[in-house]
């Protein structure tokens, strides 16, 4: 019951932030110098009548606050507007392009966690030994290298020089093997992984590096805890101490970091989708920007902001679930 209440409280607390995101996006979109309709049409020869018609259609002839209220009314009904360039509803476009982005971001996290946790633990237990130094160098290089350049280098090595992995696009398993002409689900899975591998590593490296640093510090701290001393004094084997006693406590901050880093991961996805030609939200944003597709740009920003907020709420709830000390809903 406590957890459910906590979840509801967190969701309610998120409402002002979500409204804030729409306000910021709306203000940005409406401070643009010049006539948005002319910008949108990018110098095409059009008569004033068409411009007026478009302005009416978008409600641009009405005052700002009225337009915001109209925008929010539509948004609450799931309508994020209409893309004039693509002649399709924004909501539909975003839903279509969300899959690849989520697949990319989640796999990058899977890669980051699967490498960072063992390496961080290794570094913590072999403090100041070669394994520790190597992991610290990896972490340092990881936080200092632009993800898109890692992507470029991976393409150069694995796609261009060695020719073993594809350099662009993803395979979406939900389209089924027939769509790609694969023999079956085994090949579909194989191709999905093959295509995902390079972008996943490119996007996940920064996450891996930050998580590894945190994991190392947390494990070192946890291993110095009195409860670890107690377990040792009662003859608990070192492996159990590492895997159970010290590890469980050290994981708590990792959960929070994962949630907060979602922000960098979603931003990085724009770059990685660009490098690897992945048709996700990030590339949709870039395409929308080239066409100055206002409603599409706003829609994507609002949706990505919401994804981050939801992600943080999910990690907060898992934290509360894992850490018995969290008092649900109360500010202690």
């Amino acid at each position, binding site marked *: 019951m406590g957890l459910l209440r906590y979840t509801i409280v967190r969701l309610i607390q998120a409402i002002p932030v979500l409204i804030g995101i729409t306000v910021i*996006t709306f203000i940005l979109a409406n401070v643009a110098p010049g006539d948005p309709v002319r910008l949108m049409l990018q110098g095409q020869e059009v008569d004033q009548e068409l411009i007026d018609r478009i302005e009416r259609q978008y409600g641009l002839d009405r005052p700002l606050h009225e337009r915001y209220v109209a925008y929010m009314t539509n948004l609450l009904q799931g309508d994020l507007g209409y893309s004039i360039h693509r002649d399709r509803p924004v909501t539909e476009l975003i839903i279509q392009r969300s899959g690849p982005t989520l697949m990319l971001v989640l796999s990058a996290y899977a890669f980051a966690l699967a490498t960072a946790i063992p390496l961080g633990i290794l570094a913590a237990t072999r403090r100041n030994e070669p394994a520790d130094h190597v992991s610290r160098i990896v972490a*340092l290089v990881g936080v200092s*290298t632009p993800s898109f350049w890692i992507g*470029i280098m991976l393409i*150069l090595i694995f796609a261009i020089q060695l020719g073993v992995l594809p350099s662009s696009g993803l395979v979406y398993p939900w389209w089924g093997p027939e769509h790609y002409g694969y023999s079956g689900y085994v090949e579909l899975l194989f191709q999905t992984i093959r295509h995902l591998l390079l972008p996943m590593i490119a996007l996940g490296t920064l996450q891996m590096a930050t998580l590894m640093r945190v994991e190392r*510090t947390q494990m*070192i701290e946890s291993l110095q805890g009195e409860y670890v001393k107690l377990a040792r004094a009662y003859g608990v084997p070192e492996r159990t101490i590492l895997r159970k006693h010290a590890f469980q406590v050290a994981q708590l901050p990792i959960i929070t970091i994962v949630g907060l880093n979602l*922000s960098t991961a979603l931003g990085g996805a724009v770059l990685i989708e660009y490098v690897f030609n992945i048709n996700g939200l990030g590339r949709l944003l870039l395409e929308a920007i080239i066409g100055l597709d206002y409603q599409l740009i706003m829609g994507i920003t609002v949706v990505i902001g919401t994804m981050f907020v939801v992600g943080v709420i999910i990690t907060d709830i898992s934290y509360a679930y894992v850490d018995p000390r969290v008092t649900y809903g109360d500010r202690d």
Partner: protein
Amino acid sequence: MAIGESQLDSDGPSTDVDAQFGWRYTFGKVMQDTTARWGLYVVAVVLFISAYTLIDSNLSRLTFGAVSDFAAAEALPLFEHPERIPPPGEIESNVPPAFHPDGTLSHPLGTDPDGRDYFTRIVYGAQVSVSVGIVSTLIGFVGGTIIGAVSGYYGGWVDDVLMRIVETVYAIPPLILIIVFIVFVSGGTPDIRYAIVGVGITFIPIFARIIRSEVLSVREMDYIEAARASGVKNRDIILRHVIPNSFAPVLVYATLQIGVTILVVAGLSFLGFGAQPPTPDWGQMLNVSHGYMHSNVWLSIWPGIAILVTIMGFNLFGDGLQDALDPRIND
């Protein structure tokens, strides 16, 4: 709210940096640490190159006029002009680096598709990255200090409103917020100036959070109480007492933030929202080289290494500074 917010507050450097540590002491501690020392060397070299090229390019511009003036290039003491495209007869485009059989020593890192010397462009790129990194961080630093100090000092509804705004800006991934900012504010014609301002504004919340938590602890100090009791104006208390005493951890954070800023600006330029051609900028050079990945591999390699080394320098130095100022995080 319990976790999310408290964790956000604590992801900066720790709050109680001992004020008694003087600059000389801090510098000595940084120099003791091998990695931090190397970080400082890298930062020093990059700063020197930036300063040199800044003076160099402006001198030549003043003396010889426009970039397209061929005379300018010949008169330059050390480098060809990074933006000057050689006249049609002299073009040597896509020359590979010196170690390649087809390379020449006069172009150690090769030339780009327009025939410009790549080494020169890489060297000049430092200027853009570093100045953008420092200026943007400064904007975030100053803006964040003001908002954080006001918010932390006054508390109450002022604090609530400001912190909700900060939280909201925090919720949109920085890169995306900056891109949207640049596009809308520039009306579709991006420029490095918009990028600098956009990055700076986006980082205000991060600084505001740190300085706010500092101020919250400083606010309770006896001397602030005393100043308030003796009728010193709020504005003066903030400027003379609160901000100076909350400064050190934010300064450390700013050093680390320069690395992040350079990283973000490189990403922006790579996508075409930062520096515009023909300005030599590492991210923008990677954008151009993206089209030559199959034919001219080196075009993609050098700018990336330059970014990596520069950011690593700032990160190492920042880490060292943090360790020197905060004895609690010594691992």
